[in-house]
């Protein structure tokens, strides 16, 4: 993965929505100490390196400016690790049902 985005690359940028000083009074203290930030993906309108400001065009055609954070941003979620406790719980339930008479 190149660290420099070319025009037309699929990228992700981040921008500040609200500085911490402007956050709602209803927000708990730990959250209010932080700015409200956002990330969004789109096509690069110009060349930029990671960390630089740049404009993108989103899939619905909006233009948004922000700091470049990723080129070809991957999906990072998956199925996680196996949970043996759940596998055993399923087996236990099957064994339980095997012990139950068929006419129940």
């Amino acid at each position: 993965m190149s660290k420099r985005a070319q025009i037309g690359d699929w990228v992700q940028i981040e921008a500040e929505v609200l500085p911490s000083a402007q956050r709602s009074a209803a927000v708990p203290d730990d959250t209010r100490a932080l700015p409200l930030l956002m990330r969004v993906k789109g096509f690069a309108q110009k060349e930029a390196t990671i960390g630089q400001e740049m404009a993108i065009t989103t899939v619905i055609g909006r233009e948004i400016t922000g700091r470049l954070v990723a080129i070809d941003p991957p999906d990072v979620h998956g199925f996680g690790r196996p949970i043996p406790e759940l596998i055993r719980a399923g087996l236990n339930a099957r064994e339980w049902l095997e012990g139950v008479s068929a006419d129940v």
Partner: protein
Amino acid sequence: MYDSYDEVMGRRQEIITKALGIDYSQFEQGPMVFDYEGMMDRVGYSLSDVRAIQQSVAVGSTPLIELNNITRLARSLAPAGKGARIFLKDEACNPSGSFKARRAALSVYEAERKGYPGVIAATSGNYGAALASQAAMRGLKCLIVQEVFDSHWVGQPEILEKGRKCEAYGAEVLQLTVGPELFYLMLCLLEETGFFNASLYTPFGIAGIETIGFELAEQVRSVTGRDPDMVVVTHAGGGNVTGTARGLLKAESENTQVVGASVDLSGLHMASDRDFNRKSFTTGHTGFGVPFATWPDRADVPRNAARSLRYLDRYVLTHQGEVFYITELLAVLEGLERGPAGNTALAAALSLAQEMDQDQVLVVQESEYTGAGKHPSAQLSFARERGIDVRRGDPEASVPGESIIIPQKPDQVRAREFSLDKMRRSLVRNAVRESGIKIAGEREVRYLADETKRDVNWIREQLLELGVQLEEV
């Protein structure tokens, strides 16, 4: 980027009215009372219209599946003669994998009919994917605002998956850090784009769900020859309960008990950056269920069409570990890999069925798709990485945000009663506070009775306790 928070929030009513094309003021009848049924009748669609609109986009008419092995399990735990037949409405069969397609179908239809170029919703849930899917079908643009990350840019795998699904259907997804001010951004975007506010809480968003209640009543009658005795609904913002119950009434299934079920996340603050990733359920939990039930008008529309206390007969809580457990059982005993979030009602159902007679019928009215991010293994791995203790044992001992305990035995799955009267009292208190009324007349008393499914005398007692004077009749 946009006008300041206070400026935009100050224009809130004006922005929302323009982005919905509904004048809510026509339903207001004083500082507290509004004409709920009038709003549903005049703004929503008739049941036959809703069915036709949904059929045209392949939404609804989902199968009702009898869960024979989970029923046997419930009967093996119940006293002799007890253990209702448990059925599941397989809402995962909708185009976007959840019942939310029903709500989105109506919102997108309405947006297209009124000539809006696109739709916007602030949601981290299945509704985003549903809206994106429906917008794709009708050729409208779709913009989803999600609360995704903590301040370290770590996101719940389930929310990441829902964002991916929105993008797969061609939506633009704005992924935010924790905080309720995503509503502010949504208002900014409504002004900028001129899109339709496809809120979950409009009359369209609720009318779309009525078909679940109507369909399941028809299906249960055709399979069992009787009306459903109990329908258990996973309760988050209250729309699912409201729409389903209204649909049951439209099917004249008046004696069906409507039970709400939520995952108990008490003690975790929903808007806290620290707590945000310590919960393993992003919906169907008490962090939405209790505040929305007790004050529905906190939503992103002037009057919320989702008003669950008007319909609930019982409200029960389950623990996170119990829902993961029933999700595993649904897979290995019934061959259905679904959820987990939509399975909250199913966990409660295993316990509730044991109170009922064997010839009675209990329906769990939704399932949802599963996959990367959403699957229990993804959720529980994420929890473990955050230091949450995941183990077998009695879920009764679990503490939200600290431990998830997967039952050792099926009789450790319990539906715990949560007092509806306590929630009703809280609704009355909120209504009095928000309206500022000092004297209540017959109209206020009747309205609150409808709002809480309680009789007028009980409402009068509550008002007197709150120091509100009652007008002489």
